[in-house]
């Protein structure tokens, strides 16, 4: 069964049709990539899944449940986690604290219990720390554990954001340009992590990425978008050689070389 089903979704910003009748399915255990030129509507699809925007038409279902009935802050409870294209970390907090916020959906204690730091709160904290510590281990974040985000280099922040999403123990991970702005080595690491997340943790991934090298390396299926419309869906090789895709990239250069900017 497919995990995420988006059917005929359309979203307009005023006169601009940012997402135009798009349908896609992400199956359990797969890495699905969205590619396309700048402004194609890729991030907007993520924001639709996150419920930041209401689609004008169409449906979004997760494991058979209607996502459109929920608010943005209820989406994580479906076991969906995400990262942002322009890194949205909690700047005045440490790496550890950022990852712990990722655990928010597993929260069991309320405000009053927290204020007196009841034994239940204490036990809960121990659980969260144990889970977060595994993520820190997995992503090699030990050296940055107690560092403030504000002072971290760009590449590390990107990893912390991935970690924060992982800390919530999702079934589906939405990664918006995980490798943008990363060096070649950092991109390599990211590719390994994505593979491990898929194969060892069994987490499905929907990813937006411009780096076709990375897309080809990790994803099973790819959808190419342009101006909000689907151009082609298939294996990375099929999509890259699809005439409509090649045409969409005309003028922006070869598909594999686009979008290395940080946007």
């Amino acid at each position, binding site marked *: 069964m497919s995990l995420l089903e988006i059917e005929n979704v359309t979203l307009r910003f005023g006169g601009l049709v940012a997402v135009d009748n798009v349908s896609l399915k992400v199956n359990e255990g797969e890495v699905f990539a969205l590619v396309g030129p700048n402004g194609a509507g890729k991030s907007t699809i993520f924001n639709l899944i996150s419920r930041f925007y209401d689609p004008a038409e169409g449906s979004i279902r997760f494991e058979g449940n209607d996502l459109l009935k929920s608010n943005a802050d209820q989406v*994580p409870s479906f076991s969906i986690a995400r990262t942002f294209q322009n890194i949205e970390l909690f700047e005045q907090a440490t790496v550890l604290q950022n990852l712990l916020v990722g655990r928010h959906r597993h929260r069991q204690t309320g405000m009053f219990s927290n204020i007196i730091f009841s034994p239940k*709160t204490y036990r*809960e904290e121990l659980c969260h720390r144990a889970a977060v*510590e595994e993520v820190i281990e997995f992503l090699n974040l030990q050296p940055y554990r107690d560092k403030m985000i504000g002072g971290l280099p760009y590449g590390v922040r990107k990893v912390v954001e991935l970690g924060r999403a992982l800390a919530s123990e999702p079934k589906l991970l939405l990664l918006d340009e995980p490798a943008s702005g990363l060096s070649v080595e950092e991109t390599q690491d990211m590719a390994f992590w994505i593979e491990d997340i898929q194969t060892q943790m069994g987490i499905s991934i929907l990813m937006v990425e411009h780096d076709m090298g990375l897309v080809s390396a990790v994803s099973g299926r790819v959808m190419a978008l342009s101006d909000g419309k689907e151009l082609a869906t298939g294996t990375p090789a099929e999509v890259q050689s699809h005439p409509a895709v090649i045409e969409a990239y005309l003028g922006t250069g070869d598909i594999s070389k686009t979008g290395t900017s940080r946007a």
Partner: protein
Amino acid sequence: MQFVFKTSYDADISLFKHGAQAVWYGLLLLLVLSTPLYFVAIDDAYLLGEITGILILAIAGMGLMLLTGHTGLPSLGHATFMALGCYLNINLLSEGVPWIVAFPLSGLMAGVLGTMIALPVLRLHGVYLALATLAMSMLTSDFVVIAEPWTGGIAGAVVPDINIFGMEINRYSTPYKFYYLVLLVTILLVWFYRNLLRSPTGRSFTAIRDSEISARAMGINLMRTKAMSFFLSATAAGLSGALFGHSAGYVTNETFDLVMSITLLLMIVIGGLGFIHGAFFGAVVVGIIPVAIANGRTFLATTFDVNINVPGLESALFAFILICFILFEPMGLYGRWLKIRTYFELFPFYRKDMFKRQKSYLKTDRLQ
């Protein structure tokens, strides 16, 4: 440099980061506990009253710090919640409710009422929220006048003495008892505050402060969490207001005015936004400046025979100090202290940009 060895997660969760920190706070506790001994020795409790006043201010400061420094919501109306707490306390006491019940109850009721008042404006951001709370503060004095049967209106209300199981406490006749009582409330609230910050609730507050959009994406309900922060904040302000009443002995419609609201906000900015310490550092500055100016004036008059009688000098000096802080020390006094400490800890490796941080307070919502 102090190394923190992580032997277990307890090290992260416990109140103090390491043994040395616990020792320092232990010494501080000893100091504040033994302070009255000095005033007993000199047989003059006037300054102890001032110190008590600073603690009362710091309690309201902690409330505002939680809201503004930790949740990122500015308020220019916290004197209103102090007024709520103060008048609720007076009325409960005059209804014969024992202080031990009336005091916490007035704080909690101020919290609930404050949250109800604030709910409609909690959707607002940055400067708009500041303006809405400012308007609330401007109306407070009028409401106190309108609610004359409960507040005494312009004529004012006398605040009954504290009576705990037969023990009478009054600022003037038993200044030491009053000091210890306020100290106890302060320590309790600091402990609550620390607990909050090391638990999920506190983290959801700071998450909202730093990025509303990703807080929401992590499953944090913005309105509910902001309301929680407002409730706790207004409760602390209410408790402070009740104690302020006992300390003043007599309150009128002008006691909890706009200037007080603004002073509270200035206080936490001067002290250092985003740190519990900031509330105390700020309260000390706010408490000391008037005393220092008065002393300076007497000193000039007695030694040089110079009489300075410029009206509004205190406010002007205060405003000047604040502007200097915002210009030169945006992290406040506590930020300065952190820098000095880090400088010595890391000597000679200190880098100048170590404390650079992005301006993120009062940031308006941004979506992609």
